[in-house]
């Protein structure tokens, strides 16, 4: 498997952005027929390495060879033509085009120059079927959730007759089944001799699929290892650069007691909330200090529930009570007035304002709540920003750089900080740990626990059931856009039972009451 010559080598790669040295003298090799994991903390330079390889960025220094030929791509178009197929971090597709078109654009089957649309749709359906997806391929991609979009991006990449397949955090928005599906296909491709570069923050996934691991830290190369020869703990140590008991931190697993919390008036109680075509009406109460987990398959409507509660979408009907008094949550501004915060799963489109600096992005929600006439004094801004840059370990630590220059994970932390600064009473976190490295993930989990101990209510949405179970007092289960059950997180609750609930939907009546 690894005794042949590498299909791809990168030597001495350096790349700087104004003020940041993203890569410094990095070497990397990729062999045919292997899955090679590229690991590192947020901002370590993984995505940059991939973009340098595919010609999105020019290198400052260094050389790249493909099949022993020196190459220097001017952009993804050339890279694709040379057999390097890439799924970039953050879904990079055109949401205004149909699903089928997104898969085939640029290499549509044609007859005398005319695109054969029937053929495009047929092939798209066939390809998606390989990923166990059954979509309306002529619907615009934008009408599907981020997870589906991610799957479509993968479908696009694997259809290309590639020798090298690059997947930058493809699994961050997928659930277990889809990950399994993806891995099945990755193995199949690997056995066909394709070289796969794979980036993820899930250690389990690395050990499940990767043959070899390259670790980056702070833009520098730490080393290249065979997966079998690198225990998990030392991998984490190599990524973080110091010996840490993070893993133990994660193992800590406390059942959280619901009973005492549910006394008294709920902080937010909604009944018969719903929106035609998105979520069936549901009722939910959240108490101060309570963490409610929202579980369900992708596309089951979790994000929709969150958006309704935050007023990002309007509910068709139903009542809301905040602190026991009837209120309305019809716009985000209203929700924020009631002390609700919402950290969207789609950070690029709905989260960051790329033009603005880290500082401005962080104080945005607080400033919006105060109104534009009462600016937050600069000193206070700096204090707040400084505090959260430290607390969340945001890098680079310069609050004045435009947030667009941050790596994906660090952008996520900025968003989190934006909401923490507003000191909300109910914080809705939609996939807050997606694309975040293991250290930061633990930090966020700890943070959620701390916040709820301090009296904040949290609605926690995550594709990882483990995480939901670990943090929540109560788990609401979504299935096919219905809230089918609300389960107290007691001894009897585990991932299996939630999966069964999802699969059978038998608890539906229980939720409807």
């Amino acid at each position, binding site marked *: 498997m690894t005794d042949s010559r590498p299909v791809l080598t990168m030597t001495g790669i350096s790349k700087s952005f104004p003020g940041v040295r993203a890569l410094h003298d990095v070497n990397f090799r990729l062999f045919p027929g292997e899955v090679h994991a590229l690991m590192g903390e947020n901002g370590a330079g993984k995505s940059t390495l991939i973009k340098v390889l595919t010609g999105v960025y020019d290198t400052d220094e260094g050389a790249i060879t493909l099949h022993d030929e020196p190459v220097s791509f001017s952009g*993804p178009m050339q890279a694709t033509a040379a057999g390097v197929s890439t799924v970039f971090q953050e879904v990079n597709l055109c949401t205004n085009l149909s699903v089928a078109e997104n898969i085939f654009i640029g290499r549509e089957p044609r007859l005398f120059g005319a695109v054969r649309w029937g053929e495009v749709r047929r092939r798209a359906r066939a390809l998606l079927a390989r990923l166990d997806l059954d979509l309306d391929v002529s619907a615009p991609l934008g*009408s599907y959730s981020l997870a589906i979009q991610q799957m479509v991006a993968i479908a696009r990449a694997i259809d290309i007759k590639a020798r090298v397949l690059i997947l930058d955090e493809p699994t961050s928005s997928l659930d277990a089944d889809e990950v399994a599906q993806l891995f099945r296909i990755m193995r199949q491709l690997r056995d066909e001799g394709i070289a796969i570069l794979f980036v993820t923050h899930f250690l389990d996934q690395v050990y499940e699929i990767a043959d070899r691991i390259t670790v980056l830290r702070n833009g520098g190369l730490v080393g290249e290892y065979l997966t079998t020869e690198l225990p998990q703990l030392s991998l984490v140590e190599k990524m973080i650069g110091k010996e840490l008991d993070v893993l133990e931190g994660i193992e800590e697993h406390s059942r959280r007691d619901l009973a005492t919390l549910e006394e008294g008036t709920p902080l937010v109680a909604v009944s018969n909330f719903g929106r035609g*075509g998105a979520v069936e009406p549901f009722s939910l109460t959240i108490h101060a200090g309570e963490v409610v987990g929202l579980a369900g398959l992708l596309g089951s409507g979790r994000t929709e529930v969150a958006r309704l509660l935050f007023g990002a979408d309007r509910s068709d009907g139903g009542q809301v009570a905040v602190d026991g008094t009837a209120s309305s949550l019809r716009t985000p501004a209203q929700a924020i007035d009631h002390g609700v915060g919402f950290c969207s799963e789609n950070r690029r489109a709905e989260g960051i304002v790329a033009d603005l600096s880290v500082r401005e992005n962080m104080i945005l929600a607080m400033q919006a709540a105060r109104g534009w006439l009462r600016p937050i004094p600069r000193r206070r801004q700096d204090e707040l920003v400084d505090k959260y840059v430290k607390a969340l370990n945001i890098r680079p630590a310069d609050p004045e750089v435009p947030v667009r220059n941050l790596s994906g994970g660090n952008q996520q932390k900025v968003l989190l900080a934006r909401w923490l600064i507003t000191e909300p009473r109910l914080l809705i976190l939609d996939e807050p740990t997606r694309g975040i490295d293991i250290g930061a993930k633990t930090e966020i989990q700890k943070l959620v626990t701390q916040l709820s101990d301090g009296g904040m209510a949290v609605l926690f949405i995550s594709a990882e059931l483990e995480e939901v179970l670990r943090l929540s007092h109560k788990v609401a289960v979504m299935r096919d856009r219905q809230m089918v059950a609300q389960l107290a997180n007691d001894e009897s609750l585990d991932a299996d039972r939630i999966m069964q609930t999802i699969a059978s939907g038998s608890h539906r009546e229980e939720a409807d009451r």
Partner: protein
Amino acid sequence: MTTGTLTAGRNRFRLPRKQIPVLATLALLLVMYGIGVSQYTAFSNVQVIFNVFIDNGFLLVVAVGMTFVILTGGIDLSVGSVVAMTAMVSAALLQDGMPAALVLVIALLIGPTLGLLMGCVIHFFEIQPFIVTLAGMFFARGMCTFISGASIPITDGFWTAMSQERIGNPRGNFVSISVLIAFVVVAIAAYVLAYTRLGRNVYAIGGNPQSALLMGLPVGRTRIAVYTISGLCSAIGGILLSFYTLSGAPLIAVGMELDVIAAVVIGGTVLTGGAGYVFGTVLGVLVLGVIQTLITFDGSLNSWWTKIVIGGLLFAFILLQRLIGIRYK
């Protein structure tokens, strides 16, 4: 556990959603025409409709080019001036006695060349299209006055024939050759947008240029092509205009870019790019044409009331279109 096929069967009601703006425009256009017919007897003549096409053939062609540009999220302010420049160059060359065929070739080359140049500046130097094409507009208009300060009549036989040929019944209802040319351009454009890679790339770039780049699409080439196409359409439009007026005048088609942009947007194309159809643009041009016809038929408006009424009708139209669009979304 076993979840067979993941049915993300999230079939929201979305059947004609993309087409709604276009359909709304169509409906409103019919209503407006109905109003005209009920108010003025002569409005129902078939020739009135034909005249709308005859009088707006060149606008239609230019608007088709603009549709390409706007679909990528760009804008081309130079079209009016390029139209004028093409007409001006043709007139000047014909006056100098150059054969018509050669003049046609030269005139049809100028627009795309300028478009190509602007496209290159926009793409390679990443300057906003608004500015680059504004400079293009100044340049082309400057060339017009540079060629001649006064209008130049065209007496060439070919031009006159193209101008005065009536297809149909010359004594009854007829259209001009320009109308046929315009329809051919519309048909080609519709085909290109729907069935060719270039066309699909246009939509992709309009949807998200960053993604299009990362998807390996030829963003630069497409963007340059789009401005070249717009330049070509402006050149064809300029030729049609010179058929139409049998002359080149330095100040003709001033402000035409705004009419064209308005037509494209009324036709349902979004200025940020990525959504819209050539057919919508045809409707948009018709809307502007019918508004004007209504006003001339009325014939009682003061100069300033004309402007106010045009603004008012435009407003009513856009508002209704918008409301219908929201209702059925």
